[in-house]
Structure formats: C-alpha cells, structure tokens
C-alpha cells in the first residue's frame, strides 16, 4: 500500500508541473494577445529546442549523481567548428594542405568533437576521481578558450542556405529544430526506460556501491553518459549557429545553468537515481514559456532574471514538500 502511494506522489509531482505550466500559459495569454498564436508557439518551441538537447544530456548525467558545467562552452566550440569546417575547411599553409568539408562532414566533425570533449570529462572524472563539478568546470574554461582560438575571437558568418535550414527550416509543417529535439527526446526516453544502459544510469545514481557490487562497470557507463552529453551540446551548438547564420565565440554562455534549471524543475534529484527525461522536457518548456511570456509582456530584462530565479526556487520548494509527504 505504501509503495502504491509513493508511485502516486511521483505522478502527482508530474501533474503539479503540468498544472504550473497551464496556469503560467493562462496568465500570459490573458495579459498578452500575441501569446496564443501559431507563430509564437513555433517560436517558443524553436527556442526551447536547443535547451532541450542540452538538458537531456544533463539529465542523464544528473541521474548518475554527476553534473556537467561545460555544455555551454562545448556548444560554442562545436558550433564554431562546424561553421569553420563547412565554410573554410582546414587550411595548413605550411604543409600546403587543404581539406574541404561537405556540410554533412562538417556536422559530423562538430558532433564528434563534442562527444570527445564529453568523453574527456568522463575520463577525468572516472580515472582521476575528480569531482564532476570541478572536472567540468575546468572544461568550461578550456572549451571556451579553444573556441576563441578557433575563431580568433571573431564570428564565423554567412554559412550558406543549406546550413541555415537546420535552424530555420521547416519539415512537414514543423520547424526542423523541433524535429531534432523531438528525436533526441524520444531516443533518450528509449535509453532510460528500455535499455540496460538506462538501468545502469539509474542504478549508479541510486546506490553506486550496490551498482559496483552488482557487476556494473560504472566507469564505462559514466564515460558513455558524458560523451552523449557532449555530443548533444554539439547538436545544440549546430542549431544555434545555424539559426543565427553565424558562430559566435561567446555563444552558449550560461546555457549549462538553463539546462540544470530545466532538470531541477523537471523533478530530477541532483543526488542522482531519481527523475526522468519527461520531467526535464516539462522543465525546459516551463522555462521557455516563461522567457517568452516575459518578453511579450515587456518585462525589463533585469526583472526577467529575477522572476526566472524565483520560479526555479518555487518549483524546487514545492517538489521538496511533495517528497516529504
């Protein structure tokens, strides 16, 4: 009986965030007639898509009781690498070498670099037992520095129409970024619910010692999870770059915090083992709607930040209250 009640509280928490979202939408819709239009709806989803990609990776990491502060920087670096490869290729004048990249090659290049950086995060954390917070904090700085080096501090712009499709195009009446985020979410739900890797992720966060004794190679699982997060940050970077038709060296600054906020609002425990991709998607949507609403209501950008912070706080406090019962 007790267990059944507990299952209900989980559903209740999910229900709470749905109710919060509905209330939020209703208030904004009453205050602004621009909110409930198709255009604005797609706009919100398109903006959320990037955060969803990063937040999904973040959720997997947080479920193992880790954290990744480097995703914003990895996003910028991989966006810039993709842009640079696609526009300029690799030129080594000293060796008289030039390698050109097709768009697909450039995209793959960016994603591979992202997953390698994520893998490196995992390597530092598992091999040298560096706390995830510290290891990925270092990567935050390193990847940002590499972005500056790669771009020489200047944006890489005018990337061509095919590239721009990724961020601005439509497919079957739905924006391409929304497709991408949707596929990422579905894959992540499949992994967390229907595969051994997913079970191991929850087991490590739930009780790392028990996981080790159960014969789980926890280092391997962590390496995979951090690599996925890196790759998803790269996907986010490609979408941002494409939408702006420009890779900005300072893109993605602070995105890791938005991702963590989405994860936390979505009910995933920062101590690991508890939470879901679905929750995180809800969290990202709530943040996105809030951002959009505050802009539509002409709230000053300074106040926007205060409101956003307050909402995160309230969400977590409500969540804690639910847990206690």
């Amino acid at each position, binding site marked *: *009986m*007790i*267990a*059944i009640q*507990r*299952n209900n509280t989980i559903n209740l928490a999910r229900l709470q965030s749905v109710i919060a979202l509905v209330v939020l939408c209703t208030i904004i819709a009453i205050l602004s007639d621009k909110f409930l239009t198709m255009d604005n709806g797609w706009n919100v989803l398109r903006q959320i898509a990037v955060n969803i990609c990063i937040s999904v990776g973040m959720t997997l990491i947080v479920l193992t009781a880790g954290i990744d502060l480097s995703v914003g920087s990895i996003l910028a670096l991989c966006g810039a690498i993709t842009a640079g490869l696609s526009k300029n290729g690799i030129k080594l004048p000293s060796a008289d070498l030039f390698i050109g990249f097709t768009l697909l090659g450039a995209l793959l290049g960016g994603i591979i670099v992202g997953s390698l950086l994520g893998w490196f995060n995992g390597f530092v954390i598992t091999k040298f037992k560096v706390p995830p917070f510290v290891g990925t904090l270092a990567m935050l700085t390193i990847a940002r520095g590499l972005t500056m080096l790669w771009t020489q501090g200047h944006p890489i712009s005018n990337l061509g129409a095919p590239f721009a499709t990724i961020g601005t195009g439509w497919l079957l009446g739905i924006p391409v970024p929304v497709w991408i985020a949707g596929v990422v979410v579905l894959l992540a739900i499949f992994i967390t619910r*229907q*595969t*051994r890797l997913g*079970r*191991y992720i*929850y*087991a490590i966060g*739930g*009780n790392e*010692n*028990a*996981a*080790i*004794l*159960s*014969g*789980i*190679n926890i280092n391997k699982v962590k390496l995979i999870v951090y690599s996925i997060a890196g790759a998803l940050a790269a996907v986010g970077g490609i979408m941002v770059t494409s939408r702006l038709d420009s890779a900005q060296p300072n893109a993605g600054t602070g995105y890791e915090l938005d991702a963590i906020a989405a994860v936390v609002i979505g009910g995933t425990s920062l101590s690991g*083992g*508890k939470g879901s991709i679905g929750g995180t998607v809800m969290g990202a949507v709530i943040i996105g709607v809030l951002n959009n609403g505050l802009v539509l209501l002409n709230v000053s950008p300074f106040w926007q930040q205060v409101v956003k912070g307050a909402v995160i706080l309230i969400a977590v406090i409500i969540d804690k209250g639910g847990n206690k019962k």
Partner: protein
Amino acid sequence: MLIAQNITKKFGGVTALNKVNMELHPGMVNAIIGENGAGKSTLMKVLSGVYVDYEGAIVYNNEPLKLAGTKDAEAKGIVIIHQELNLVPGLSITENIFLGRERCNAMGILDKKEMARETRTLLEKVKLDAEPGQLVGSLKVGQQQLVEIAKALHTKANVIIMDEPTSAISDKEVDNLFVIINELRSEGKTIVYISHKLKELFTIADRFVVMRDGCSIESGLMADMTQDDLIRKMTGRAVSGTANHTTQTFTEPALRVENISLKGASRVKANVLTDISFTLHKGEIVGLYGLMGAGRTELMETLFGLHPKRASGNIFVNEKAVQIQSPIQAINQGIALVPEDRKAHGLILDQKIKTNISITVLNQLEKWGIVLRNKKETELSKEYIQQLGIKTHSENNVAGNLSGGNQQKIVLAKWLATHPGILLLDEPTRGIDINARFEIYNLMKKLAASGMAILLVSSELPEILTASHRVLVMAEGRLTANIPIAEATESYILKHAIQHNITA
C-alpha cells in the same frame, strides 16, 4: 567509583542490556569482556551519555548521575574514545583538542599561542612526538588515538572509556599506549577498556567484567583468572544452537584459495589478511566465524574482486586457476556476494523490487542485444518473489518500503538469478526477524543440496553451529582453525577466534 545499577536498555522490542550491574574502580584498568553483541558498546554509550533513555541508575562517587548527553558527560569527567576516532582530519592537533572549547583573549580573538602551549604539554604527556600545528589527517591511526587521549586529558576526564583501542594500531604503538594507560592509572583515573584480545587484557587490566547476551555475568580480579576461565564465562549461554550433525562428506572442490593476503589500505597499516588458504566444496555450507575486525568481510570482498591492487594469492574455481580483479570477473566465475550491509551495498532502496532483482542479469533479458524485455523481467522477479517468499503485493513496490528480512531476500534473489556456483553470505541474518531467519537457513540448505557451495560469515555462534557443515575461524586476519561440525563447540570456536598463535 562509577557504578551501574540494573541498567536496562531496549531498542524497540530488542533488549540490548538486561539489568546490568557493574562497578568500575578508580586507579584501575577495568576490562569489559564479551562476544560480539554482548552489549558492551551499548553499555558504554549509556555511561558516556550517548543514550539517555534507559532504566536503572548510574552512581558516580556516591552520587546519582543522570547524564543529559555527551557534552554533559564530558563536563562531569566521563569521556569515551570510540573505535572510530572522532577527530577532524583537516584541522590541526591544537584545533582538534580545543574544538568547541576554544581559548580567546580579552579581545575575543583566538589565543593561538596559549592553546599551542597547552597542547604541547598534553602531547608530551601522551608521548606523541608531533607539532601542535600538524594536521591530524597527516598522523597515523595510533598517533591520532593519542590525540584523542590528549583531548580527554584536556577536559580533565576522570573516567576514560576506550573501545577497542588496539584494533587498528601496530604492536609498538600498543606498547606506547600501555605506558600511557599505566600512568593514567597511577594518577587514579578510572580506565574502562574494551577489547577482544584476551592476551592484551592480561597485560594491562586489573579487573574484569564479563558480559553475555546483554547481562553482566561476573566480575573480579584479572589475576584470579586464566584465559580458559574467561572464555568459558563468555560463552556459557543458556540456549545453545543445535549443531548440524552431518555425516556427509564433500569431495568436489568448488572454490579453493591459496595464500590470500591483503595489504592494509594505507602504507603504514599492517596486513588485513595474511596467508589464508581453504577449500569450499560443492554442496557444502562452511561457516566463517571471527570477532569484529578479524577480517571476515575483507576476505569476502577480496574473493569478490573488490581489492585488486592490494590482494595477492591464488584462487581456483572448479579446480581452474582464475583471476578475479573485479566484481564482473567474480560474477563470470559464478561467484555471488550478499554483502553485510544490505542498505549500503546490496539494494537500491528507492527502486522497485523488480529492478533490484534484475540488475545482475539484464544482459539476459535483452532482445536484439539492446531492448529490455519488460515482460520477461516481470516474470523473473515474480518467480523469485514466490520462490523466496518475499512478502509484497507487487514486484513494482519500492524495495526500501519492505522489512529487513524481505529486503535481504531481494538481495538473495538478485544473486540467485545469476545461478551462482559459489555463494558468499556476509551476515545474512543481521537485523532480521526470527521467521525470516529460519527461512534463510532453510533456503541455504536447499541451495547446498542442489550443489551450491556456500560460505557463511556470521558473528553469531549459534547461527554458525546451526547452519554449517564445517567451521572456519579467523583472528587478526589469519585463519586459525578449520573444524568439522561434529567437533565444533562454542568455546572451542571462540578460543580460536581470540587466541591467535602467531607462529602458526
């Protein structure tokens, strides 16, 4: 003089102390002797103010004493030095000694000079050659213990309780400790000394109190006693387990280990395990007994590949030499370990029974090598819930909501699902009720009858005698006896668990 009168302490329905009476004399070393679970630590926690709700009375220097807590005990001059030292490794010796009692000057600023000076005096007294400013974390365990004693002296303690003070220190450090204890005794302090090492007690103790099953049995002068006397008094329990008199012989080895040794976790510590060799046969249940700190759990962990860097020796499974460097390799060799602490190491408490059971065999529940077959997983967990009699409405219940016995069965289930040939059970009945206990004994018998080899670690002699076909005894990291069940008696086993013949 510190006198305990009719002290009774209950935890829920379990009586840990039952009308305990004892006198602890000043200017003497009072040894408290008893098996694991006899109630020694509980009594000390009552005397030092850790537990404040108990029945009975404490009389200290002819006045009734009612402690409000450890702080209060300290103020009244009673200090306990726990087996797990209570120091902050990141602070200096001085900072540790003055923690919560910092000296300030007139300005309200820490008077570091004065504290360092006092610390230096204390360190001289406990013969610790260290600087007051040195970090406690940089000291060896034996030295840290001396810091604890210095701290006790600083609070002007008159009663100093030491719980297993020599369990983690070298012989040389023991000698030094004894010199200090002798000095404290000559100053008229009351020393209460808890130890499993009888030999040591004959060196240092003046008086003894034997405890058994939560009662104080007898007290007197050490000089009137022999080791055999004490052992007899420790074990002479009213209800003795009925031995598992079997005429069965087991011939087919399942697990054979040769010269297993395990180095200490830090460079300075002595070996945790030394040259352990034994054979476990198919169908056989071997009980492994030892007192706290004898190395039983470490042996299990080593066999399960948890200490690849520190362990040495040979392991043979079904007479084939194998390398076991990780739990994964152990599992692949058909070894399963039910750990001592099921909450910390056995279960994921927040997850469903189903997910806890299937975690060890998920690779067998996949289709196309990737997708988990939920239906098969549910069937598997239902099968084990039924087979082991786990009391629950559904396999989807959260493991943490079940009773201790049922939780233990989940841990057993997750390991039986791997179909192990060798089952290592570390204290499988700790903290579970009597019914579940007998269910687990019966299960063990059934599993052994089907050919499984079982190594049962237990701190409870009746359990060892009831469940095993053969008994191994460990003391101080060594195997000290290998006894057929027909010859095993409680006092015989305990004797080998206490007396360790170094030359063996």
